[in-house]
């Protein structure tokens, strides 16, 4: 009995460790090799940097040669503004859809949930045309608009679930207290949605930060490139500056990790709170 339990626990851990290695391995490889000289990257790609192979040449080149800070700034602006607006509009829409019954509310909820099932990239050509017509081509605004559309459906879905768990007496009490509807949302409901908002924030940020597709088709100048697109300029048709690519990629990972760490406590609460109580 005892042995069987041990064996089962061991098996589970083997699977988990294997999965972690599989998921983290490539990232580790990128970070590790970003600190190595070019020869060492190709000579022994799997070994960590040592005194003879350690080199910061990649980072030095990235800082010197490219618009990396502009890219970073662009990525941050796009990600944070998109996230903020997705959270604001998502929470407001979720509240409206679960709280108020109005003509077409069911149809609207259904329409918004289509975005969960149909990837927004299917509309790339139309989006490109729209942005061109609107004169938003090669602007960060275009990216932000697309990302809001991309993030909203999931945000509304998750936040609606949470709103349904908030006791409705609270809303009634606020109404009896004479609190206006907008203040009920912002001062009574929204503070209670904090764990859910953290969850949605992470789910929104990661795909936006990592996205390559929309910056590729919607931005054309250096001043509007995001970090993921910026890295591509080190990948040439004939020659690839691997030191710089790896260094830039390593740096691009960092902000997401930081954000994740900040939100992770709330995130766990958000993911599990529906399950237990």
């Amino acid at each position, binding site marked *: 009995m005892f042995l069987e339990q041990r064996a089962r626990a061991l098996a589970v851990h083997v699977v988990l460790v294997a999965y972690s290695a599989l998921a983290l391995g490539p990232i580790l490889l990128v970070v590790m090799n970003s600190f190595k000289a070019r020869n060492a990257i190709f000579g022994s790609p799997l070994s960590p940097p040592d005194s003879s192979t350690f080199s910061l040449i990649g980072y030095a080149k990235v800082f010197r040669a490219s618009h990396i800070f502009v890219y970073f700034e662009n990525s941050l602006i796009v990600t944070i503004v998109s996230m903020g607006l997705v959270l604001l509009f998502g929470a407001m829409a979720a509240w409206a859809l679960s709280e108020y019954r109005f003509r077409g509310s069911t149809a609207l909820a259904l329409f918004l949930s289509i975005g969960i099932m149909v990837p927004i990239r299917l509309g790339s050509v139309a989006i490109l045309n729209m942005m061109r017509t609107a004169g938003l081509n090669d602007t960060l605004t275009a990216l932000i608009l697309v990302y809001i559309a991309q993030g909203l459906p999931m945000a509304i879905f998750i936040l609606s679930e949470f709103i349904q768990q908030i006791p409705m007496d609270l809303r*009634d009490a606020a*109404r*009896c207290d*004479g*609190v206006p509807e907008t203040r009920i949302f912002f001062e009574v409901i929204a503070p209670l949605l904090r764990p859910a908002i953290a969850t949605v924030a992470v789910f929104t940020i990661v795909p936006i930060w990592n996205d390559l597709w929309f910056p590729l088709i919607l931005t054309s100048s250096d001043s509007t490139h995001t970090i993921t697109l910026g890295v591509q300029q080190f990948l040439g048709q004939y020659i690839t500056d691997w030191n710089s690519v790896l260094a830039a990629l390593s740096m691009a990972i960092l902000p997401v990790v930081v954000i994740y760490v900040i939100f992770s406590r709330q995130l766990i609460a958000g993911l599990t709170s529906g399950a237990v109580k």
Partner: protein
Amino acid sequence: MSNLRVEHLGKSYGSANVLIDINLTVENGEFIVLVGPSGCGKSTLLRMIAGLDGVTTGDIYIGDRHVNGLAPAERKIAMVFQSYALYPHMDVRKNMTFGLKFTGVAPAERERRVNEAARMLRLEPLLGRYPRDLSGGQRQRVAIGRAIVREPDVFLFDEPLSNLDAALRVSTRVEIARLHRLLGATMVYVTHDQTEAMTLADRIVVMSEGRIEQIGKALDLYYAPANLFVAGFIGSPAMNFFPGAVEAVDGGTARIVGAGFEPLALPADGLDPGAKVTIGVRPEHLRIAGQGPFATSGAVELVERLGESSFAHVRRADDKMLVVEVRGRETPAITETVTFRAPLQDIHAFNASGQSIPIKGSSH
């Protein structure tokens, strides 16, 4: 302070009628309790008075204001919820003042009201705490405090004690009664607990299936229930009912016979031979070796001893169960066959449609 009038009020959800033609006048300063089994519409009525649920038909007046179209806050009501409904992210003081911000009460006045309510409810040491750090009783006191600071025309309570344990329920009940005396405010209180209703109310409104069955003072409902429903609902354990029929009428006296009791001469008018009659007697009014025209007997199956009294469960001749309250130490033995009697004044009679039949010579 204001009175409250509800006229021909109805509420439907689609084809389901939840409330049907409700008429009720609550006097200024009166404590009214709405009581009834779950699903009888009492909470819906309260929510409609509050303005949280819409009115399908009829009118609601607070004072001389017609409030059908007004938002809850404009009606000058305050509501206390079963779940307390305190704002979890605000401390006690903020919970009480939060609403006042929006109704144009100056900061100094807010402060005065909170301090006064806190003193009244002994909440002063708790003002800086958050709801999660309070016990159930304290939370409900804060919720009541939040209602008081609004200085409403009408207080509405929606089962405020149902989430509390037995001891707290009694002490908070006393607290609410004290508060009503202190404030002299008009209060409407919903509960399914008849003890709360009997102890708190100036008048009780008994509801069932969306209708008002009877409105009256606690003792009126107890001694003179208007119909079978009220007779069965008020009083614990519930009144015993004996189905019977009129065998003969002689002058002003009807002879009632039934399987569960000895033939009974009932001085009542308007009864025709053959009419169905239900006789009702409360457990506490039946006596072993007692006096009176009503008599029933059966074998004792179970005795519940509560100390000052015991409840004997007796199988009647018509195979239904009868509950009798026996006072004192002497309780009947199990399987013993016992005869119980009740005097005329403690007998209730109901006609085929369940309405009470007046009994001549009875005190009520």
